[in-house]
Structure formats: C-alpha cells, structure tokens
C-alpha cells in the first residue's frame, strides 16, 4: 500500500493540473474507470480550496473506499460496516467546531447502516455524508446491493434482481431528504466534466452549511463499477446514464428555503 507515485519532472511553468495537498502521494487501488478516484479528488479539492484541512476529520467505513485514509490527507477514522455516521456523530459531538464527513458506499449506508444513516440524519447531526451509489457490492466481488436495479445481474441475482425475492432498489437519499434535521441533499455523478462541477458545487455548499451549523448535508454520487458490472469504463458510464439515472435522477433534492 505504500508505493508512492513515480516522481516525474514537470517544469512548473508547464504545470496545468496539480494534485491538492489534501491528497497523499499514495497510488489509488481502485479499478480502472471507477468513480471513486474522481470523487476522492473532488472532495479533497474542496477541502483544500476552503482551507479547512486542519479542521476536518473524515470517516471511512467498510467498502471499496475503506482505505480512503491512505489517500485523503486529513485525520481519519476507519469505521465498522455501516457505522460511519455513528462514529462521525461521536467525533462531531466532542468537536462541534470541526468539520466532519463520512464517505460511504451503498451497501454500507443503505443496507447494514440504514438505522445509523436515518437516525443521524433525523438528529440533524451537523456533518456531511458523501454517499457513493454504484448499485453493487464492489469490495466483496459484485453481490446485489440495496440499490441494485430491478433486472440487474449480480453474483447474488444472477438472473437479474426481482421484486419477488429482493424487493425494490432503495431510494434512501429521498428518504433522508424528508427528515426535518436534514438541510441540504443533492445527487450528482462524476462521469462528465459538468457532473464533476456539480459535485464540487454541492460539496462546497455542504461544508459551508456545516460551518453555519445548519444540520445534516447529504450528497449522493451515482457512480459505476466497471469490474462488478463486467463492462468497460465507457460502457459502464453509458449504462449508468441510461439505467441508473431514471431511478436515481441527478439534481438538488433538498435546498434551503430562503
């Protein structure tokens, strides 16, 4: 895990794109084309641009992003599967002046951690929840997730998810948005430059609201899993647009009333 990026000599005058100090030199372990890398980058870029690296504590629970603390150059805690928002609650309650965020996948946040997710939001904990939804358990090898689409094939729904055996893909973001303790909810993606800009805007707002003590902010990133979906990255992004977006449409879901 400790292999740093090979050093390359770039003349500073030629440098048009730079990694923020909030990302370590560690090489990502993510599969080619996976959305985690961009989502990590955008989140850390926002923390860097807001100048809050020294005041920020992150929580990474079990899932593909459990090693986020290797990449994110802020103080971090790994959490048990599903428990990120409880861990974040503990941190935030002891340090209400610090910025606290969780970075969770769909299995973690919307299956095993549903109780923690809902109750943290219902208390209006003044934290940011970043929710990466790729409709599959990537880390354990592509099993059905709570957000797996109807008809979608996974290793535990080999003929496609059916309502009869597995019910419906859960729209937890919409559920969370209904709770009065939740201040801001957005859903974006990271597969186009425009989508990345939307995510960056949403995360920036969320940290600003946290500074103002507004309550829970919840940002879903609809993402892909080329390995789990058994597609090339390009196919995966196209499939995501055509199949995931109708069920999980991007946009701001809950915005503050002025």
């Amino acid at each position: 895990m400790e292999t740093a990026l090979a050093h390359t000599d770039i003349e500073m005058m030629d440098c048009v794109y730079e990694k923020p100090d909030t990302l370590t030199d560690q090489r990502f372990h993510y599969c080619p084309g996976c959305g985690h890398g961009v989502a990590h980058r955008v989140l850390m870029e926002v923390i860097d641009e807001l100048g809050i690296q020294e005041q920020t504590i992150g929580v990474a629970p079990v899932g593909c992003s459990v090693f986020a603390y290797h990449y994110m150059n802020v103080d971090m805690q790994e959490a048990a599967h599903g428990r990120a928002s409880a861990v974040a609650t503990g941190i935030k309650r002891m340090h209400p002046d610090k910025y606290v965020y969780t970075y969770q996948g769909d299995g973690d946040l919307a299956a095993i951690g549903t109780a923690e997710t809902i109750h943290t939001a219902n208390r209006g904990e003044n934290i940011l929840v970043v929710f990466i939804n790729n409709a599959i358990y990537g880390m354990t090898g592509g099993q059905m997730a709570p957000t797996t689409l109807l008809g979608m094939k996974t290793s535990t729904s080999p003929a496609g998810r059916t309502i009869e055996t597995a019910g419906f893909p859960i729209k937890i973001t919409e559920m969370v948005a209904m709770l009065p303790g939740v201040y801001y909810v957005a859903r974006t993606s990271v597969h186009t430059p425009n989508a990345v800009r939307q995510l960056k805007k949403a995360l920036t707002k969320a940290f600003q609201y946290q500074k103002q003590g507004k309550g829970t902010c919840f940002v879903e990133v609809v993402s892909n899993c080329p390995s789990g979906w058994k597609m090339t990255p390009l196919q995966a992004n196209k499939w995501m647009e055509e199949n995931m977006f109708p069920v999980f449409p991007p946009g701001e879901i809950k915005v503050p009333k002025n």
Partner: protein
Amino acid sequence: MKGNEAIAEAAIRAGCQGYFGYPITPQSEILEYLTDEGRKRGMVVLQAESEVASINMVYGASGAGARVMTSSSSPGISLMQEGISYIACAELPCLIVNINRGGPGLGTIQPSQGDYFQSTKGGGHGDYRLIVLAPASVQEMADFVYDAFDLADKYRNPVMILADGALGQMMEKVEFKKYNPADHIPPKPWATVGKTRDRERNFLTSLHIQPEKMEQINLALQEKYRTITRNETRSESIETDDADYILVGYGLAARIAHRAVEIAREKGIRAGLLRPITLWPFPYGRVQELATKAKGILVIEMNAGQMVEDVRLGVEGRVPVKFYGRMGGIIPSPDEVVHALESMIHQPVEANVEEY
C-alpha cells in the same frame, strides 16, 4: 445512593466528557442521571438509536481524544461486541459498564453473573482482552470508575466494569474521592482532531490486509496484555491465612460468600474468601498460592459455572474444586453456600470430581 447513580456521579467527577447509551433495565439510571446531572456539568450525553450506534459513537469520540463511556446490560452488551472488537484493535481508551442481568436471550431483568465468559474471554471476534473490574459494593462502583478511566488511558485499552442488577439497584453510603482529571488524563497525540501542519495525518484503523502486518498488530496487543497482567492483577483475600477451605467469588457473590465464611467459622470450619477484583487479568497466581495450602476450594457464582474454569486453571488439580451457583436472576443465600461447603467437606475425596 444507588450503585448505578454512584457510577454516573463518579464518571462526572472523573472528567468523563461524553456518554453514549441506550435504555435497558437494570442500568437506565446511569443514562438518566447523566442526562440530567452530567449535562448540567458540561458532559456531552446522547441517547443513541441502539447499542450498536452507542458503542460506535464511543469509538468516534474516543478516537477524537475524549474521555468517554457507555453503559448497558447483557443483551445490549451483546449488541456492542462488534464495536468493542474494533475499539480493542484500534486501541481506543473507553469505559464500558455492564450491569449484568440473567440470560440467555431476553432472560430476566434480575441480577446475574452470566456474562463472565463474554467479558473476560474477548466477547467479540478476534484475539483481544478487556480489562474487567468487578465491584462488590456501591463504594466500589464509584471508586472503580476512576480506576477504569485511568487504566483505559494508561494502556489505550477498553475497560469494563462488570457488576450485576443488584449492585446497580442497591443503595449504600458512598464517598467520592478527591480526583482532578487534569492530573490523570494523558496527552493523546494519536487522536484525530484535525491534521495540523507540523505533523502527518492521524488515522485510526483495525484493517491490516497483509497477514504479516496483522500478526505484528496481534503480537503488540499480546505484549500489552502481558504487561497489564503483570501490573494490574488485583484480588482481595479475607481470612485465608489459616483457611482449610477457600471460597472464591466476585461481585455480589463475594459478599454472600463473605457472610458464608463468617457462618462457617462460627460452626468451627476454617473457611476463607478469595475475591478476584480484576476478572481479566485473572488472579491465577493467588489461586495457585491458596491451592497449595487449602484442602478444597468452592467457587460461588450467579451463573452455571464460568469463573470456576479459571479457578481450576489456577489450581491445576492440586485440590478439589467444587462449584455452587444459582441462575436466571436468583441470588444464592449465605446458608445455601454454607450447606454447599459442608457437603463438600463431608463428601469422600474421590467424590470431589467435576459435576457438570
């Protein structure tokens, strides 16, 4: 003051900064007392949605450098085991209070010592230990809170106070000792409180994919547990110097056994009491010493016979070890214990074999 309230009051005085818990009989007074008194005196007190959430809030808060605790009773402690295992591996200091009730299952709200195995042998997954303190009076319910927090910080290890529903509910006089938290709470440079420019980021984890790394983590934990065993093993011996028969009991059972020792002595039986105070580390050495002098050992527990296994490990077959216990929330009387002692004495030696 009630035992549960003594724990709560001592926690405030010990400088506990955060409490995260969930209601369950017979320990809800701790949550209630702290919600009222603790908050008034500056403590963060949060009623969580479950014991699963409580223990993970403790993980987060302790990882962020705060002196924190939770409390529950048997079924709730079972729910916490996953989090306790993570806390043990990430080496986070905290206090967990278990006011033991009768099980298994939902069981009864009456007092029990049925959680001895769970508390002392790990409880959750993986090779780890809690330091387990067993108070036998309301005074000790208070005193052990300070000890528990100090031990937790000293060794970066979770500490459990294991009492039972009777100790939690009974009222006795209690004095709170002078204690200045600032003199006791060490700096925590490992805590996640925001990465400053002068240091690398802190991260807390229990995940080490490479087996060689995970083995090193385990070896370090085992070394720590050996140090704790050397330094912190505690027990109390009462009238054991001339004793032919040693009663062994902890917590409430030790108080009953103490009374039984007095009755036995009135009857001319030279009996004594060994009371383990740390259930882990267990006072094997003291058991061994006593086993070289005594004719027999009788273990008294409010369960089906759990600590008796540790007593047998200490005795190593030198003298007969018998067990007397009640289950399901029943508290044995001193007379029952004396009767068990007498029948042990009057049985032929060859009959003193294990009876399960």
